[in-house]
């Protein structure tokens, strides 16, 4: 078991190195000039800037310097926010994205399992039809539409009641998080609902459920002990990457609700060709994703004893 995870961790490090290298060369291959601004620079000012960011070195040298710095955990200084270290940007803004993301995952996970189980139990009856219709909506309507509509509805609610029922944006208390987290978790919730439903239906028709029924176990016990526990496995599998995806994919929600998360920096850095921030956030997110996948494997072992047997 230990050996298995040691192997996974080494593989994970290789993956991160690959992500870092691919990002580095991909980023430099993107057309555009990271130093360009609205107004043209004199050759001297440009040379001054290139020297400052090490862009005057050959690409190979730059790559080695980057790798060396990343190995030491130093992502350098942002191109656009000239006095801020990328490490500080990640340290200050990732916890916000993570808080929002965890809440969104809680919504998505609880909602997905609950609605999925419900639709499976009421298969082809009206709760199933209604929920699955909403699920299709949740999957297909893009988050910027959902975000805008929910904010607009909140304004309407506050205006109608004459009090601030919920803040429509900004960051500070748990009240600020509720609606953005729901919006952020919505499509994952919809996806998990579908997954849970099909997985539940699959389990229902298995032999061991039939055996349990034949033994005369009460329906609630069959549901909770056998059906739910087995059906939830695929959900846990996708939950890992989903956590990484949600905590990093909040760009739209962060912009609409004015939340100072890392997602904004991630996306804007690419638009502005802010090399150090692109490298920093991508490598950080990559590492995070790798970590989550390993963690899920670990958790999997506890839920499904069969995984533990296979070495």
């Amino acid at each position: 078991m230990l050996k298995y995870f040691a192997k996974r961790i080494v593989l994970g490090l290789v993956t991160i190195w690959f992500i870092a290298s691919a990002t580095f060369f991909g980023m430099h291959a993107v057309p555009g000039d990271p130093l360009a601004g609205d107004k043209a620079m004199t050759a001297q000012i440009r040379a001054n800037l290139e020297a400052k960011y090490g862009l005057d070195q050959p690409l190979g040298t730059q790559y080695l310097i980057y790798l060396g710095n990343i190995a030491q955990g130093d992502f350098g200084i942002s191109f656009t926010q000239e006095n801020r270290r990328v490490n500080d940007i990640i340290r200050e803004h990732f916890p916000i994205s993570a808080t929002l993301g965890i809440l969104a995952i809680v919504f998505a996970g609880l909602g997905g399992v609950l609605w999925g189980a419900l639709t499976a139990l009421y298969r082809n009856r009206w709760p199933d039809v209604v929920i699955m219709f909403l699920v299709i909506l949740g999957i297909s309507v893009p988050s910027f539409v959902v975000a805008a509509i929910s904010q607009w509805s909140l304004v309407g609610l506050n205006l109608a009641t004459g009090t601030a029922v919920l803040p429509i944006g900004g960051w500070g208390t748990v009240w600020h998080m509720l609606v953005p987290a729901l919006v952020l978790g919505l499509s994952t919730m919809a996806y998990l609902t579908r997954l849970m439903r099909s997985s539940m239906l699959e389990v229902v028709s298995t032999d061991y459920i039939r055996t349990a029924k034949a033994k005369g176990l009460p329906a609630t016990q069959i549901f909770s002990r056998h059906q739910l526990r087995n059906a939830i496995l695929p959900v846990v599998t996708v939950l890992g990457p989903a956590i990484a995806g949600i905590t990093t994919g909040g760009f739209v929600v962060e912009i609409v609700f004015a939340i100072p998360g890392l997602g904004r920096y991630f996306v804007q850095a690419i638009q502005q060709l802010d090399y150090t921030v692109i490298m920093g956030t991508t490598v950080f997110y990559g590492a995070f994703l790798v970590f989550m996948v390993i963690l899920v494997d670990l958790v999997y072992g506890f839920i499904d004893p069969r995984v533990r047997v296979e070495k």
Partner: protein
Amino acid sequence: MLVLHYASSSLTGAVTDVSAVDVERNSISILIREEPPQLDSSRATDAVSGMVLGHVMEGLVRMGLDGRLEGAVAEDWEVTPTTATFWLREDAKWSDGQAVTAADFIFSWQTALKPETGSEYAFLLFAVKNAEAINNGTLPPSALGVSAPNPNTLVIELERPVPFFDKMLVFPTFLPIREDFFLATEGRFGADADQLLYNGPFQITRWVHGSSMTFERNPHFWNQDEIHLDAIHVPYITSDATASLNFFKDSKIAMTGLQAENLTEAMRMGWQIRQHRDGTVFYIDFNYRDGRATDNLNLRRAIQLALDMDEMVYKVTKLPGYEPGVSLFPGWLMGEKTLLRQEYPPTKIIPNASAAKAYLQTAMQELGLSEPPTLVLLSGDNPISSVQSEWVQQSLKTTLGIAVKIDKQIFKQRLAKMTAGDFDMVLAGWGPDYNDPLTFGDLYASWNKNNRGEYNSQELDTLIETAQNQLEPAVRMRAFGDIQQHLIDNAVLLPMYERGVTYVVDPRIKQLKRRVIGPDPDWSRVYIDTGSE
């Protein structure tokens, strides 16, 4: 409950009690589109940094509420062809109580010019003696032609006569920086609220990156009588226009911009809609490099007569507050006594399809073409640019049969392609740096790096030199009139529109200043009208 407690205690410093106008606390809340990249005035280039710095710092001079230059840290000044002298007021203080002295300006300017600083706007200082050589690294910063005979007098030697030198000083690059404080920040100057020393009406007391800022009244500011607010809060930083409107409706912020699609709603709400032209001119730029069809005058004339900018502004983009472009020199620029546009009205181009076709025929003969050329139009990737480039494509196709290929690029790549000359036409824009027509007038000089199409005309260069070097206002303004005529006659560029913004402000707010040059919007002199008189 636990979660609640965790959430509210772990995120300290957040503004949770936000109100557009707080009469009791004498404060207001506003939204900014993006985070200031950093507030080191020697390196700031963007509008948001300029706006914030305009509230917390003060230069030698400032733009007054009446739009005229007035003394700020300087009580009085004098500009001659060779020197500029500024007499600083004795009661100007930093936020730690120390006096603002001439040395603080000298240090700041030397810092901006040092090659290591990598300041993009260092060129604004090139009017000062030896500035360019310092920026090139050929002279040490100490060689800069500025001196302080005493702490309250700043004498500047000029490299060449600059009639509008004092007007340039409203730009953030010219703000003071105190040496001992700058050195103590160890390279993090302007990165955080406590990494800055303030000499303006407000000081930043809180700056949560990407999230919020608070400006509180600076008790050491000399001109307390003009300042009325105790605090300005920035609880939100977002570029989302709809979110901004929602915050305004929810009474969280004191001002919001309006998009065309919100106008009906704004009118229904009974808001007083205001307009402001932000000073920027947008135009089609041509490529004059060898081998480009757009180097041909008759082809450019054909395009000039084929495009109806009125149609574009009023029927296609339909953006409120925009005005069809008639000249590179926008309407707000001052001439000798009144507006430049009144003194030298530009020739209005009347679209004319048949004349355009005739010019195209001539152009095709000159270029040796049997069919109209295919042109590449470089464009930004935002929705407005997309609509405009498609309109250009459509218009040139129907009127002239010219095929236009649209090359849509992200901002940085569009700039890279402009610099490399990889286009025939490009949708470009230009905003002013200082309050003189020269900020537009020298754009097509053969030596100007921003002349990305590399237009090169001896006649135009001579006119620009006159405008640059002559001190007599009448002579200069005539030169600008001639430059304008040259640009129109030769279809050097095709002005599309002057940009406007449409916005609403909480009606209790008075003395909000929108401006073209200097911090915009300027909340520093705002007061709250409680209507109780």
